[in-house]
């Protein structure tokens, strides 16, 4: 009985249907209105979760389309999480599968960009190790050194200037070249920077635990000591294992 009632009630909320025969008539609030309050709250709350994580997507497609997409997304992926921070995680995949109109063909990648920002923000924050040896490291030590990237580091390649699109600056978009975005957390904030393809290869090599010497081969002469120093001080190069 209770199971049937809960199943029926939840379906009415999700499908915006009204079987009012199971509710008593109130003096000030009709069953129809009462049910509408639950239905409105359900969809509104879910849309707010989505809006919080994907403000750039909303900015680009507008409130009405965003609202419609939110309904489609949560119909396809109803929340199975007790934590609101998880319920939006499939949105980039959903948009990719949906294949939006050519006007918004960048939208799935923009959603991925915004999701990676979020992932970066919530990544683990382990203690940094191995850095104190840097001033006294010998050439032999450097050969054996393996840099570990910060757990917040993510890479994303796109033919779109997703950073500009996130701000709603569609006019600045170019889709001829490929851009690589590096996501990282610094001083408690998730940040993004554009990097070159060579730099991306350098980070991928470090991720594979290749030596600094081998990874640096990707960089040629375009990366100077300042860049390396920035990566180290910002925490992107998080720790060193001296093998």
């Amino acid at each position, binding site marked *: 009985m209770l199971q049937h009632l*809960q199943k029926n*009630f*939840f379906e009415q909320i999700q499908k915006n249907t009204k079987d009012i025969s199971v509710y008593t008539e*109130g003096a000030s*609030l009709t069953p129809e209105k009462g049910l509408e*309050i639950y239905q409105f709250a359900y969809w509104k709350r879910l849309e707010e*979760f989505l809006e919080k994580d994907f403000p750039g997507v909303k900015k680009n497609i507008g409130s009405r389309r965003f609202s419609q997409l939110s309904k489609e997304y949560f119909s396809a992926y109803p929340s199975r999480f007790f*934590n609101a921070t998880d319920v939006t995680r499939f949105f980039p995949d959903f948009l990719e599968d949906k294949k939006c109109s050519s006007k918004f063909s960048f939208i799935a990648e923009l959603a991925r960009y915004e999701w990676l920002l979020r992932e970066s923000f*919530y990544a683990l924050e382990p203690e940094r190790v191995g850095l104190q040896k840097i001033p006294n490291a010998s050439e032999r030590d450097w050969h054996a050194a393996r840099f570990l990237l910060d757990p917040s580091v993510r890479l994303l390649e796109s033919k779109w200037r997703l950073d500009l699109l996130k701000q709603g600056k569609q006019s600045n978009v170019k889709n001829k070249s490929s851009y690589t975005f590096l996501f990282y957390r610094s001083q408690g904030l998730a940040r993004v920077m554009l990097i070159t393809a060579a730099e991306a290869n350098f980070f991928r090599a470090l991720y594979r635990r290749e030596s600094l010497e081998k990874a640096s081969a990707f960089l040629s002469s375009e990366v100077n000591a300042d860049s390396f120093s920035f990566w180290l001080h910002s925490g992107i190069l998080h720790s060193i294992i001296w093998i």
Partner: protein
Amino acid sequence: MKDLGIGLGLRAPHYDDIISGPVQVDWFEALTENYFVLEGAGYSKSLKNLLKIRERFPIVLHGVSLSIGSVDPLNIKYLNQLKELVQMVEPEWISDHLCWTGIYGINSHDLLPLPYTKESINNVVRKVEQTQEYLGRKILLENVSSYINFKTSQMKEWEFFSEVQKRSGCLILLDLNNIYVSSVNHSFDPLEYLRGIPEKGAVQQIHLAGPTDHGSYLVDTHDSPVLNEVWGLYEFALKRFGAVSTMVEWDSKIPSYKKLEKEAMLAKKLREKVLKNAPAFAKEFF
């Protein structure tokens, strides 16, 4: 019953005010799920702030996703995370709502109303007992506001709540705003509700908040000051239940910390006045 005095709902925009500034309230209530450590993630900024605040103030944890009234079994993953958080924060107590939030594993993220039936009582009591056994401590359950009533209900909400409390041994978090909202929406006397709640030893905490007035009905939005009618219920509750830890919640259109604290100070003044003028035996007359 441990009396913590007057508290506030802990909200992210106020972390800095609380950590660095002078604070007049005695304790804070933190929303449990906001501080869970996500899988593969580190301690969030929010959790670090909470632990800092914990060094200076008593904290209670208040959840929204236990779904104690659902026919679904308890979510062991949820309980594990709750247990882990409880070990970290060492709250004075933990609470959730007398409601259900979803079925078949799908979460509405809303506090849905229960039918007030014996079957429903049996279901809730069994799950409260399991939760309390798992956590090794009593939990508090809070009454929710509602916008529909089921025809299958066999009793009044307060009879249902009291029976759940009596049989499961849980404690009560009485939300006076929710009582008022439901009393307007379903046309019952809120004082009758309060008279129906066990007088001694069961009420551990009181919530105060403000709803949105839609003319013929109210919606529990926590986005406005406490209504005069709810202050009236608070006065009545203080006389009936004595010195109960009380806090003000504000979740939408969140004002500055100072403004929120002013609202809490109104509760403090009223509480002091009522408790000063009402000797222990006085509550027998209510």
